[in-house]
Structures are given as C-alpha cells and as structure tokens.
C-alpha cells in the first residue's frame, strides 16, 4: 500500500510527535509514504475569508496527487475533510470544475477528477489495512489501560459528504483503540467539538469547551484521552495547563495521538513515538505493563 502523505500545517508547526509516531506505525504496517512534491495549505483556514481561494488551494494539491497517480492520506482531519470535499464537489459539479480549472490553467495544472481518493489516517487503518492485519501487529497488548476517545469533527462530519462511521455514535476509532488491548470508555458529550478553530478569535469558549470534555473524560475513570487530530491535540494537551488555570481545576489527563497508543502496543518505546513531547506527561500510564 502506497500513499501520498499530506502533512498539513499544524503538524510541522507544533505537533511533530503525531508525525513521528505515525511514520513508525505505518511502516510497521507495510504502508509506503511518498512525500508531496510541492506543498501548499489545503485551504481550510482561508475558507472563511474566500471560498474560491480555498477551492483553488485544495485543487492544486489534488492536481499534484493526480499527476503522481497516488491516493492522498492525511493525518489532519481538517486537511482530509477539505481535500475530500473539493475532490468530490469538482467531480460532481461540472460548472464548478470549469470555474476552478480556469484558475488551474493559469498555473499549468488541470483537475481531471475520479483519479485519486483522499483518506484520513483512521479511514486508511480501518478500511485499507483492516482490523485483522492491525491485530496481527500487536505485540505488547495494553491490557488494563482505560482510555477515552475524541474523534475530531472532520473525520466524520458532515455525514452526508463524508459517509464514514456514524458521527452521532462513532465506533470505528473505539474499535481501533480496543485492538491495542486498552479499554475505550464512553463519556458525556463525547462527540462534541473542542472549539480549536476559533481560538484566534475568542479563546474563552474553546478553553471552557475543552475543559468540560476533560472533566467528563476524568469522571468516567479514563487514564488518557486519544485523539487523531493535531488541532484537537493542541487544545487538549498543549492548552491543558491554561485550561486548568482558567477553570481553577486540575485535570492531569495525558492526551496521546492514536498512533502513539498503537505504537506502544506494537512494542515501540515511548521515545521512538515522541511521547516526551507531550505537555501532560504520560509516565503514569506507561508503567502499567
């Protein structure tokens, strides 16, 4: 299996532990990653100010993937959501395709459509690798560990465009977590957004939102929270001390990328998976076995 890796902006900026651990576990699952020949942001951050620019930035990346003839895999749900949505919209809407290809012509590219797929890591693991092969790669089951999950909205929503899992009752990430041997607990308001995208406009709302989620995660006895989005991770991990100050409440919930949890279960050492980069240290849960 071979994919074009679309790394996005948040991961190289702040969250390289996600990339480090993802590359380790994907290699172990015999997935070959090809780097993007050139990169520009998927366009999502600029959708609020200019929808057409988002379409063209996304399409430029899709054109490069078409030239390579490789499906795109992203680690960031925002990139996956955007590229997937544009890939689908241009294929289905001839007028839109014409408009965007008019822009692409100016930079000597053309979107053809129907050539490549865009998938988020979770989709690749569940659909392409499959649970059976995933289970076979587990060497060090994390028996006894209790965690909770936070999916990242754009992995699942809007359901009518994504068509993966059920955003009201998501089970796929839970299954992926449980094949590592850990138990994945339900908690209140599990499917709610962390609010990260608006932190530059208003920080109070996301801090309170994430604080409520951390409180609920802790209340059910989860020892860690598992994420699959670098932006969510930034909210839950990097901002956790700040949330604790704002709410005058102590959480101390370690937040691991799913690829770190999987990597531990595959037998990689914490250092190989970038666990030392976590703001909320995971040392407590690492002594379990």
């Amino acid at each position, binding site marked *: 299996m071979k994919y074009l890796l679309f*790394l996005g*902006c*948040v991961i*190289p*900026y*702040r969250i*390289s532990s996600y*990339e*480090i651990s993802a*590359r380790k576990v994907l290699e172990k699952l015999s997935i070959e990653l090809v*780097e*993007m*020949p*050139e*990169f*520009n*942001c998927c366009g999502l*951050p*600029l*959708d*609020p*100010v*200019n*929808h*057409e*620019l988002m379409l*063209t*930035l996304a399409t*430029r990346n899709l054109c490069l993937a078409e030239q390579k003839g490789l499906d795109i895999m992203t680690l960031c749900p925002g990139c996956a959501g955007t590229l997937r949505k544009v890939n689908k919209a241009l294929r289905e809407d001839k007028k*839109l395709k014409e408009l965007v290809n008019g*822009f692409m012509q*100016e*930079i000597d590219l053309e979107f053809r459509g129907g050539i490549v797929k865009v998938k988020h890591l979770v989709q690749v693991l569940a659909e392409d690798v499959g649970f059976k092969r995933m289970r076979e790669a587990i060497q060090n089951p994390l028996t006894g560990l209790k965690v909770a999950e936070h999916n990242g*909205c*754009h992995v699942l*929503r*809007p*359901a*009518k465009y994504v068509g993966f899992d059920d*955003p*009201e009752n998501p089970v796929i990430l839970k299954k992926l977590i449980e094949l590592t041997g850990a138990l994945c607990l339900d908690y209140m*308001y599990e*499917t*709610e*957004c962390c*609010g*990260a*995208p*608006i932190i*530059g*406009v*208003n920080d*109070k*709302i*996301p801090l*309170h*939102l994430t604080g*409520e989620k951390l409180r609920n995660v802790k209340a059910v006895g989860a020892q860690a929270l598992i994420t699959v989005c670098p932006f969510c991770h930034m909210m839950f991990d990097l901002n956790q001390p700040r949330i604790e100050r704002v709410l005058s409440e102590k959480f101390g919930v370690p937040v691991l990328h799913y690829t770190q949890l999987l990597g531990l279960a595959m037998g990689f050492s914490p250092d190989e998976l*970038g666990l030392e980069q976590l703001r909320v240290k995971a040392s407590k849960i690492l002594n379990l076995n």
Partner: protein
Amino acid sequence: MKNHDSTKPNSDGGQANDRKKEFGRTEHKIVLKASDLDPKFKYKISKIPGAERIMLCFQCGTCTADCPIAKFSETYRPRKLMRMTQLGMKDRVLSSDVIWLCAACFTCIDHCPQGVEIANVLRALRNLAAKEGLMPVVFKELVSNIRNTGYAYRIPELRLKRRAEKELPPLPKANLEDISKLFNLTHLSKTLEKEERQDA
C-alpha cells in the same frame, strides 16, 4: 472588529452601540426600520454554494440547541443569524463579531431537519464581510503566512532543525509563484489591499 469577546452581551461589532446612542434604548427594544433592511440579501446568499437552502430555515432552533459553541457563548446563536439573514439585516450581520465564532464542526449541518447547511451559510456571510474588509486579525495572519510560505503557520528554523535530528524528511517546499497567482485570481489580494488602506 476590535473586540472579539463574544461573552459580553451586545458585542455585534459596535453597530448596536451606535443604535443605542441613536435611540437611547437597549438593543432588544430597538424597532427596526424597513428601510434599513435589504430584501434581496436572502436571494444573494441563496446563490452562494453551500448556502442555497437558507430560505428553508423555519426557526426550530436545533442548530443553536446542538451547537457546542453556543453552549459556552452568551451571544452566538446560529438560529438567530439565519433569521437575521432571511430578514435582510445585512449590515448588522456582516459587521457582527458573532459570525466569526462558528468552529465549523458541522454538527448543525448534520442535525438540521430542513437540510440547511448553517455552517456554510455562515461561511458565505464571512466571505461577504471579508470582501468589505471586515475580518478578525487572525485571518490576516493566516493569509499572509500562506501567501509568503505556503504554510498556515510560520514554522520556526528550530523546528526544521529538529525534524532533521528526528530523522524526519525535509518539509515539501511551496511554489510561491503559483500561490501568488491563485491569490490574485481569486481577488483575495484586492480584499487585503482594501484592508491595508483602511488600517492606514
């Protein structure tokens, strides 16, 4: 667009305050003049991709009830913004800070019984506001970063060095010439020049 603290009541871009002065009353007592409304606004919005179904909103309030942001905000009410848009309260809506609070989690789109893509209507409203030079400062930074580096954030040299130490491959480079062309073609550059003039 200076104050983005939505937890304060009446933070709708200052226009409510102006009206308060004008009428000497609080915002909720204001009587709207029909001449202040733009009756064509809803048609304009409904032609924007993603916002086509705005007129089907029948004000059930599911979007507000299920919105995680509304839960922690005193002012962000997607239902209300849909109504204001339908009524043609163009200036109030576009100059409001509140339209920038949607986190685009798309819960409202999944839950709307009328199939209104509320988050996309908000995106359409933000696009129009941005065209008029009204956007929070954080977007100006994102725009400038992408235009100058291809990445939404400026990645410090130290990070690039650490990538090498961790044996991560070098980051793919951006084609800045292409990106600049796309900015010009989609007229975002013009919007920004307008912004800069206003700031000056």
